[in-house]
């Protein structure tokens, strides 16, 4: 058994086929509207995305799912899955998360199978759950025995990293500038993990109105590099 480092590196690798490569989660709208135009404006938007969207949605979901499995009550995953789906009011982002979640669940069942993940995947197949990457990865991290805070840190960083990769292609910004952003955001990831640990289950799914509108607008962009 490894200390979990290699599985985390694998799951976080930008080549890992999670589907995140195809989704900008509203950022493409900001790029086309000239709100996000370069390194600085992208970094600011990504920071708010981390502090609001990831902390209150995907990140908190990952923590709550992880804790459900710690309590040995995987049925808690169903509630989290349903809340994540129903709180996402922009169709493309909701569908994107659903497809990524299902695909990731199947892939991770091949690579890092566990009873909890197997149950979640069976719920997805029976259409009792929609599927969401945060829940899938929580199951994988938990089954690998990754401590909760490290799991959240990895999860948040992986999300930021894929958005940076997309920004490099989409805005575009330079590779080095992108990596610099990831470095600069590292302290904020630590703070975000602390924020997530301080929230309560009732906080799950709080949305950011501006981002929701950008995600909704994406449906109507004429030229699109990304599916959301």
């Amino acid at each position, binding site marked *: 058994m490894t200390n979990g480092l290699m599985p985390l590196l694998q799951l976080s690798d930008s080549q890992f086929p999670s589907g995140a490569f195809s989704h900008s989660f509203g950022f493409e709208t900001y790029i086309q509207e000239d709100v996000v135009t370069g390194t600085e404006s992208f970094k600011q938007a990504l920071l708010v995305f981390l502090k609001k969207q990831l902390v209150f949605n995907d990140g908190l979901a990952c923590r709550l799912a992880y804790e459900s499995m710690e309590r040995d009550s995987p049925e808690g995953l169903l509630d989290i899955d349903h809340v994540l789906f*129903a709180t996402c*009011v922009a169709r*493309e982002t909701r569908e994107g998360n659903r497809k990524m979640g299902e695909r990731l669940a199947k892939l991770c069942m091949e690579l890092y199978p566990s009873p909890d993940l197997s149950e979640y995947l069976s719920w997805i197949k029976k259409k009792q759950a929609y599927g969401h990457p945060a829940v899938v990865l929580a199951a994988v991290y938990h089954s690998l025995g990754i401590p909760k805070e490290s799991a959240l840190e990895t999860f948040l960083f992986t999300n930021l990293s894929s958005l940076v990769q997309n920004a490099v292609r989409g805005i575009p910004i330079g590779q080095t500038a992108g990596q610099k952003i990831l470095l600069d955001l590292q302290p904020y990831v630590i703070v975000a993990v602390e924020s997530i640990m301080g929230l309560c289950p009732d906080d799950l799914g709080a949305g950011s109105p501006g981002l929701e509108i950008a995600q909704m607008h994406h449906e109507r962009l004429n030229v699109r590099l990304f599916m959301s």
Partner: protein
Amino acid sequence: MRETGLLSLEAKKRHARTKIHGYYEGAFKFTRPVRLDDDSLSVYLIHVGGGYVDGDTYESTITLGEGAELAVTSQASTKVYKTPSRPVEQHTNIQLAADSVLEYFLDPLILYEGARFIQNTTIELESDAVFFYSDIITPGWSEDGVNFRYDWVRNKLKVYQNGKLVLFDHLLLEPDEELEGVLQLEGHTHVGSFVLFHPNATRELAERLYENVYESFPDVRLGISDMEDGGIVVRILSDRTQTIERIISHIHTFARGELLDKGEISWRKY
């Protein structure tokens, strides 16, 4: 615990007409039902105090029987003042039986300096029940002219369809250095939402609604998308209550025409 305001309203269809029953206590009241020009039945909710203050709790239940049709609005905006010890809580539970129609349009929520407000609205729809809804959240006037002096507002709207959660609109506004920036309110102060559920509220209808609204309000920041199970959600950012009210009324009229075969609603309150 005793609620500051309690209200229970039930509408039933009898011989092709909707009849109202109910009761209220404390700071809540509702008017006798008023029949509007187009034969819609309407009820006006009233708060008999000056506004919501520290620790207030409000509880409302609205139930529509099979086939009943009702339009509900308020007589004035909801004002929430300073809550030094406990946030104000308002809980509303709405049950809509098969084929009933509820149009629920409250006036804006205004949050003053130091206000903390929790609002939970839960709607349970049975098959083919119709629900139209809007809300507007605005910061109240403050002595120093700064817009965001409230502490926070947590607004939750949950819609269940035959027991399944189909929409959970969860908004948490907590003024900080980022609230007015990108992804959040983007330089605006007011947030408006319009939600509708109708068996014929398709993606195609959402698309036509967007084109229609965009044509009339090209300069307003708003988004429209469709949910599974016949839902449409509209999100609006603006600096003026009147602008959001005009858009909401425009969408309401569009939805009435397309889905209820009715014209513009003319509330009896101004």
